[in-house]
C-alpha cells in the first residue's frame, strides 16, 4: 500500500515536468497576408489651369469683310468638340502689344494703318495622364475700322471691340488662314462657353448606341462598353468600375478603355433580370462621377411543346 502511494506521488510530481510534443499549425507556413509594404507617396496633385474649359467650338479661319466703308476683322468657328480644352490668356486692344504676339499659330493681323488688331489670345490644352498639357495658342481677332470718304485724310481711329465679356471657344486644330468659308459681313457674336452636359451609358459595341437593356444567350461572352458623352459628342473614358453584382464571369471589375466582358453560366430565375451598373469617369471632367446602367436578360434555347 505504501509502495503504491509512493508511486502515485512520484507520478504526480513528474507530470508537470514532462514536455508536451505538439505542433504549432502555422509555425512553418508562410503568412497568408503579404508583409506590409512601404507606404507609397501621395500622387502628384492634378493641376487644373485656371479658367480652363472644354472646347465645343473650333477655330476655322480669320475673316476680313468689307461693307461700304467698314472693314470687319472677325473669326469663324465651327460647332465641334475635339476633346481639347482652352482658356483666355490675354485680351488686347487695337494697336496694343501682347507678350503672346508672334506665338499664335494663326498670327495677329493688322489694320490698314499698320496697327495690330484687337482680339483675344487663347491657349489650347489636351488632357493627358499627367494633366493638362498646353499645345498651341490661337488669336481670335475682333476688330473693325471705318474709312472716311476722303481717303487722303488721316485714317480714323479704329474701333476696338475686344471680347472681354464673352469668351469664344477654340481648339488646338490649326487651319490655314483663308481656308474657311467665304467672309461674311455679319459681325461675329461669340457665345460664352457653357459647362458640357455630361451623360453616360452602356453600349454593346465601341461606337454603338447606348442601350437600356439587352438580351443575351447563356454561356456567351458579351462585351459591354461604358461610354460617355459631352454635349452629345462622345468623349474618352478615363476609367470605369462595376458597382453592381458580378455575373458568373467578368473580365475585370475596373477598366479604362477596354470593355467589360461578362458571361452568364447559371440561368437566373424566370422573370429575373440582371442589372449592370457602372461608375464612369471621363477625361472631360475628371472629377465628375457618372453612372450608367443596363438591364440584361439571359436566355437559353429550349424546346417548344
Amino acid at each position: 500500500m505504501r509502495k503504491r502511494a509512493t508511486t502515485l506521488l512520484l507520478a504526480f510530481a513528474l507530470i508537470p515536468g514532462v514536455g508536451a510534443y505538439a505542433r504549432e499549425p502555422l509555425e512553418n507556413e508562410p503568412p497568408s497576408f503579404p508583409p506590409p509594404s512601404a507606404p507609397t507617396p501621395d500622387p502628384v496633385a492634378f493641376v487644373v489651369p485656371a479658367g480652363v474649359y472644354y472646347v465645343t467650338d473650333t477655330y476655322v479661319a480669320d475673316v476680313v469683310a468689307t461693307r461700304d466703308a467698314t472693314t470687319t476683322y472677325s473669326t469663324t468657328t465651327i460647332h465641334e468638340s475635339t476633346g481639347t480644352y482652352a482658356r483666355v490668356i490675354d485680351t488686347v486692344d487695337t494697336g496694343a502689344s501682347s507678350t503672346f504676339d508672334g506665338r499664335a499659330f494663326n498670327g495677329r493681323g493688322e489694320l490698314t494703318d499698320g496697327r495690330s488688331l484687337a482680339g483675344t489670345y487663347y491657349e489650347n490644352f489636351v488632357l493627358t495622364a499627367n494633366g493638362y498639357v498646353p499645345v498651341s495658342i490661337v488669336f481670335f481677332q475682333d476688330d473693325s475700322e471705318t474709312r472716311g470718304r476722303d481717303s487722303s485724310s488721316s485714317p480714323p481711329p479704329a474701333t476696338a471691340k475686344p471680347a472681354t465679356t464673352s469668351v469664344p471657344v477654340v481648339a488646338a486644330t490649326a487651319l490655314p488662314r483663308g481656308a474657311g468659308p467665304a467672309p461674311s459681313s455679319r459681325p461675329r457674336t461669340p457665345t460664352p462657353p457653357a459647362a458640357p452636359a455630361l451623360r453616360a451609358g452602356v453600349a454593346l459595341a465601341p461606337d454603338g448606341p447606348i442601350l437600356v437593356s439587352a438580351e443575351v444567350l447563356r454561356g456567351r461572352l458579351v462585351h459591354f462598353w461604358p461610354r460617355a458623352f459631352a454635349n452629345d459628342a462622345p468623349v474618352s473614358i478615363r476609367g470605369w468600375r462595376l458597382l453592381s453584382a458580378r455575373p458568373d464571369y467578368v473580365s475585370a471589375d475596373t477598366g479604362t478603355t477596354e470593355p467589360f466582358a461578362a458571361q452568364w453560366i447559371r440561368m437566373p430565375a424566370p422573370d429575373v433580370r440582371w442589372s449592370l451598373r457602372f461608375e464612369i469617369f471621363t477625361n472631360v471632367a475628371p472629377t465628375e462621377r457618372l453612372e450608367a446602367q443596363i438591364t440584361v436578360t439571359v436566355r437559353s434555347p429550349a424546346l417548344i411543346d
Partner: protein
Amino acid sequence: MTQDEGGTAAVTTIVMLPLLLIVLAGVLELGAVRAVAYRAGAAADLATIVAVNDQDQTELARTGTLRLAADAADTARDYFARNLSATAPALAVSVTEIAASADIASFPSAPSLDQRTGVRYDRPTVRLIASVPVRTPGFAMLFMPTVTMITIRAASSAR
C-alpha cells in the same frame, strides 16, 4: 391425353404458328419504327436547339434585342443531317436527302406567326418539319409497304 387429342393439338399448332409468327414480326417491326421515330425526333429537337443558340451580334449591338443569326435555318438543317446519321441504316433514303427536303423555318424575331402550323411564337424560333422514310421489311409479311413514312416536328426558341 389420347392419341386423337394429341393430333388435334399438332394440327392447331401447325395452323396457328405462321399466324403467330406474322403477328410477332409485325410487333417487332412496329417497335423498330417507333424507335427510329424517337431517334429522328431527338435529332430534330437537337438541331433546332443548336440553331437558336446563336444570335445576331449586329442586332444585339444596335438594339440589344435577341435576334436569331441569319443562318439559323441552315444550321438546323446541317445539324439535323448530322444527328440523323446514327439512324441511317434504318432509313430508306440518305440523311442528306431527308434534311434537304425538310421544311425548316426560322423566325428570327418575335412575335411571329407560323403560316404552316398556325402557331404564334413569342420568342425567336426555329421550326422543323421533316418526313423520314423508314425501312420496314417486316411489314411485307403483313402485305404492308416496306417503307413507312413518319413525320416529325420540332421547334425551339431562346427563352
